[in-house]
Structure formats: structure tokens, C-alpha cells
């Protein structure tokens, strides 16, 4: 076991897969000579050379489309979006082309591609650099969406994503790149679509992913001191969702709270709530609780940003609400 930063775990996953399969290559803005805007691709240019690690112009739609075309022709591209705020410029290529190609061609053209990059707010970056995109990207059949919260999961899931024969959206976070965690020395792959109980518990199922998982863990810890036992469930993959894991947990706890950095209109949290109320209707002792970012754009000033994002206090409040405990 080595202790790695999140960024290093991702870098290892890419390096291992590029070593294993010569069809895998990486492109994106600053990924080569600069080692990545967030140093995720550190060393890859040196190891694999400029044919397989390519700096692109600032042309998200263009190079996303190059990735999709290269995948049609048999390669397995990894395309880094410096952040998903810029990835929206490539939505036509991701949604209309990558997601639909296999289907339109009746199975002839697979698109084994990973679009990866940080998603959601970092710190004081303002409205155009802080959006969480899972609501949009999980809505599209043909795309898989992955959003890991630990270095261990990040490595295992990214390897699975690279080996997957479908377009996979991989949502990271600027704030987590320096998070550290244990990563086995031996090779491992975490299958897509399988969630993980990050903390077992009995009173409330607390579902969260990416940065929010850490907030949920913090809340669970704080609540345990008040005698409330949260089961913290990390779906890890958002599309497809590990519904069985979710339903199983809720059938046990009878209560569910979802913490989702995205805006609370539709999206993954609403999907989970909808499915849980449908499938576990008779199991639920309280409505499914949701904690999302406030339904406003992201302000720059620090204390405003804090007020907008999910917080420990908001999560604790939502959990207590499902327990009908005053706060």
C-alpha cells in the first residue's frame, strides 16, 4: 500500500492503461508539456512521448470530436477537460455524437472514450468556473458517468473507465486533487456501476459522492456523537446508479438523505429520491431529504460561496429532519 494523492492515483491509472494498451492516448489543454493544469498527467509526456500525450489548442468542441472520431477509428482516447465548465462547449460532440454513435450505427461504431476533468466548485472561482454538471450528463443514455471521492476509487474506476467500450464521463474535483489515500501496489480495477458503503449505519442512509462524500462522512461523524447512526453510501458511478445498494440500505434505515453539489432541480439527487420513493415507498419513515447547492449562480466572495454550497450544518439539519428531530 502506498499513500497517494488523488491526482497521483489518476495519473497512475492512466500510465498503467497506456502501458497495457497502445491504443490508449491522452489529449487536452496543457496535459503534455505542462503536466496538466492540475498536474494529473505529470510525467506522462516523458514516459509516452508526444504521439500519445498531446497538448491541444483551446478548442473543446474540436478536440472532443477528434477523440470521438479517433474512437470510431479504433483508438481509446482519454480527453481531459481542464474543467467541465469548458466541457460544455463540447456537449454537442459528447451528447449528439459520442453518446448516440453506437446506437445510430446499430452497434457498428463503439466509442471507447473517457472525458475527464474537475467538476463543481473549487474556491472563489466565480459563476463561470464553479458549475457541477452531473444533472446534464447523467440524463443522456449512452453515456456512463463516474464520480469518485477517494484516491483508491479514483484509480480503480479510471482504469475501468478506460477499458470500458462506451463514452465515460469522469468527474473529478480541483479540491480533491491533493487529498491523500491508500492505494494498493497491485493492480486492481473497480467495476463501473457498483456503489460502496463508506460507513455502515442504521438510522439514516446518507448518499453522497465526490467532494460531498467527505462532507457526508464529517456529518456522520458529528451525528454519531449525538447517537445518530448514518450509513454513508457512495454510489461512485452515477450512470448507471447502483440502485440495489441504495434500496437495500434504505430498506434497512427507512430514511434517506442525498447530498449533491449540483443544483436541486432534477439531477442525480432528484433521481435517487424519485426511485427511492417509488421502490421503497412503504419502507420510508420520512420523505427523502436533499441537500444541494442553493439555486443561485456561484458568487465570488468567500462567505457568499460558503452560504451557497452544501455545508455540514445543512447536512446535519437534513438528516435530523428525516428523524423528525428539531434542530
Amino acid at each position: 500500500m502506498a499513500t497517494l494523492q488523488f491526482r497521483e492515483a489518476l495519473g497512475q491509472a492512466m500510465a498503467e492503461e497506456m502501458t497495457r494498451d497502445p491504443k490508449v492516448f491522452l489529449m487536452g489543454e496543457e496535459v503534455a508539456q505542462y503536466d496538466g493544469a492540475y498536474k494529473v498527467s505529470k510525467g506522462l509526456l516523458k514516459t509516452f512521448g508526444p504521439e500519445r500525450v498531446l497538448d491541444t489548442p483551446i478548442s473543446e468542441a474540436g478536440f472532443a470530436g477528434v477523440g470521438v472520431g479517433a474512437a470510431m477509428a479504433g483508438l481509446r482516447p482519454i480527453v481531459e477537460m481542464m474543467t467541465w465548465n469548458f466541457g460544455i462547449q463540447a456537449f454537442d460532440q459528447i451528447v449528439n455524437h459520442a453518446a448516440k454513435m453506437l446506437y445510430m450505427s446499430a452497434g457498428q461504431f463503439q466509442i471507447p472514450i473517457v472525458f475527464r476533468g474537475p467538476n463543481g466548485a473549487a474556491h472563489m472561482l466565480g459563476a463561470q468556473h464553479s458549475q457541477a454538471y452531473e444533472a446534464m450528463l447523467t440524463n443522456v443514455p449512452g453515456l456512463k458517468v463516474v464520480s469518485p471521492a477517494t484516491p483508491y476509487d479514483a484509480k480503480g474506476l479510471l482504469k475501468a473507465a478506460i477499458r470500458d467500450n462506451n463514452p465515460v464521463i469522469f468527474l473529478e474535483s480541483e479540491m480533491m486533487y491533493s487529498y491523500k489515500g491508500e492505494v494498493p501496489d497491485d493492480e486492481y480495477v473497480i467495476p463501473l456501476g457498483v456503489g460502496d458503503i463508506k460507513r455502515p449505519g442504521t438510522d439514516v442512509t446518507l448518499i453522497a459522492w465526490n467532494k460531498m462524500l467527505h462532507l457526508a462522512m464529517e456529518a456522520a461523524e458529528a451525528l454519531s456523537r449525538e447517537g445518530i447512526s448514518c450509513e454513508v453510501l457512495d454510489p461512485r458511478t452515477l450512470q448507471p446508479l447502483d440502485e440495489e445498494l441504495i434500496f437495500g440500505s434504505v430498506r434497512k434505515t427507512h430514511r434517506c438523505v442525498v447530498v449533491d453539489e449540483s443544483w436541486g432541480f432534477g439531477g442525480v439527487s432528484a433521481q435517487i429520491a424519485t426511485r427511492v420513493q417509488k421502490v421503497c415507498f412503504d419502507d420510508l419513515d420520512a420523505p427523502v431529504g436533499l441537500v444541494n447547492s442553493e439555486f443561485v449562480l456561484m458568487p465570488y466572495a468567500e462567505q457568499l460561496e460558503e452560504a451557497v454550497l452544501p455545508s455540514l450544518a445543512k447536512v446535519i439539519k437534513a438528516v435530523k429532519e428525516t428523524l423528525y428531530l428539531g434542530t
Partner: protein
Amino acid sequence: MGKSNIKSVTNPVTNPATNPKPSRDVTTPPKNAAGESTKSDIRASVYSKEALAALYEEMQLYRRFEERVLAAYQKGKFAGFCHLHIGQEALALGVQKTLLDTDHMISGYRSHTQAIGKGIAPEQVFAELFGKIDGCAMGKGGSMHMFSKEKRFYGGHGIVGGQTPLAAGIGFEIRYSKKAEVVVCYLGDGACSQGQFFEALNLVATWKLPVLYIIENNRYGMGTDYRRVTSVEKLAKRADAFAIESSEVDGMNVLNVIEHVQPIVDSMRTHPRPYLLEAMTYRYRGHSVSDPGLYRTKEEVAQYQSLDPISQLGDFMKKSHGYDDAQLKDIDRKAKARIDQAEAFADASPKPDVSLAFQHVYAD
């Protein structure tokens, strides 16, 4: 137009003596001293009687195919959008003749004939239009989305301009795998104002990818004269922004097209780099079968029809090799028979089972 270095490239492939191309039934005529395309007397000696007949038959096949498609649509045999290529056949055919089977092609939604040219059987294209299981996309794609991985036809795309970065990606794979192949990417005069296209041009130019972009300038994007929505008359100028080589070709004459495109393709094969070709052409029908085309005068349409690519080739065959109308009609009959057969095949093909709707969402 961007300056072209094509002529000065020494290319063994274009020298038939050292490297004959067995898969091609039409040979590129030799260049004259000035490097200009040859005049009709030289052509007569270069294109064999049989080669011309084959060209004529294939072009008629394209035409008859689209005419039959229109008739089938009007009879209610299928629905949705349907964009015909009638009038633009010389370009599809001429370009196809310069390619090898191993080359790649991608296009927009007006691509029935290009798909057939690239090797998809008319049967399969027809069946696709009818939404039948034997369609080249099992009836899941439709008129705008013809695909054949085997024939290296990458679609059939419905988002205007969306295919242009995909083509760059296919070219990327060629470079990545160090192969001597080229990609042809068709787009329209309307499509060439899409931002994605410019991003793709910059990428292929920077990375020297062997993509031949062909702007089919049929002068209209839907009801819009292209000069109303761009500031230049010559669309090949878009290449200048990136110092990509470019030129313009008369897309109504198949021999012109072959002679113009062959050296470009051959040179791209050995010296990988992009190229932008603007082909002047005209669509006879409306934008889609439901467009009456009222934005054009009858005179304008008639003027372009007087340059009809099939008639031009027929006239040349009469002059150069003494064909007569009856012989041409015979060839045409063969093409029509082929279409009869294709349509009958599509009629007979079963509808896909509803379960097919739930397949191909994700690959294993």
C-alpha cells in the same frame, strides 16, 4: 485560394508505371507540361470505353437511386427527413474514384450516394430508408445516418458541421497508426460557418492530419443563398486562416473531379497533411423532399441543369468513343434494374423487432 504545393510533390503513387492501382478502373490522365488538366482529346485517349461506361453506369445508379427514393417517399413508404443528392453526383463519383478501399469517408445527412459509392449496397441503403432490419444500420439510423464500419463509411450525420472534428479524429488514427490512408469529409456551404469546422481545420493543420475536407457548395443551405450568410464568395478561403492548401473544382463534371482530386489524394497519402477543396455544384431538388424550393427561380435551376453531370459525361462519351443514345440508354437500364432489385430487397426485408430499440445503447 491557398497556395497549393500539390503539383510539386513527387509522388510515386501517381506514376502508373511504377505503382499501378489495380483496384481502380479509371486512371488519372497524365498532366500536361503546365500541370493543367488535359483537354478532351487527351482525355479520350486516357479513359477507356469500358471505364467510361462504368462511370456512366454508376452515376446513373446514383441518380436513379435518388429518384426512386423520392418516389417511395411520395408513396408513403417511409417518412422523416430525406435529403436527395440529385445534381451533385459527379462529385461523389469523381472523388470516390480517387480513393482506395482502405480510405475513409464521413459526411452529413445528404449522403445516400456517397454511401453507395463507398461500397454500401443500394439494397442496404434502401432498407435503411424503409426502417428495415437489413438496412446498413438495421433501420435505427434512417436517411441521415448511413453507416458501414466494414466499408469505412463513418456516417451519415445530422448535426451540421458535427462530422468535421470526427474526420480529424479519423485522420488522427491514421497518423497514430502510421498508415498511408486518407479521410474524405464532406460538408456543405452552410456547414462551413460552423465553429467546430474551424476548430477542426486548426487541429488538422497543426497536427498535419490527412483529411480532405470537401465543401459541396451547392449554393444553398436550406433556403439561404450562401452569399447571404458569409462575407466571402470563395469558401475555400477558410483554409487561408490556417495556411491549409486549398482549391476549387467544377463539381459538375466527373472527369474534372477525378483529375483534380487524384493528385491531391495521392500526395496526401505520402505527405500527410490536410486539404480543403471547394466543389461548385447544385442540388436540383429542394433541401429535403418536403421543400418546394421557392427561393430559386426556374431559370436558375434550368441553367445548372444544362450542366447536368450525367449529360456532360454522356456527351463526352459520344464524342470521344462514339457512344450513341441507345447505348447510353442500355447502361441506364442496367442502373435502373439494379435499383428495382434494391427496392424489392428493401420491401421484402422484415421490420426489426421492437426489442432492437433496447439494444446498442451501451456496448459490452
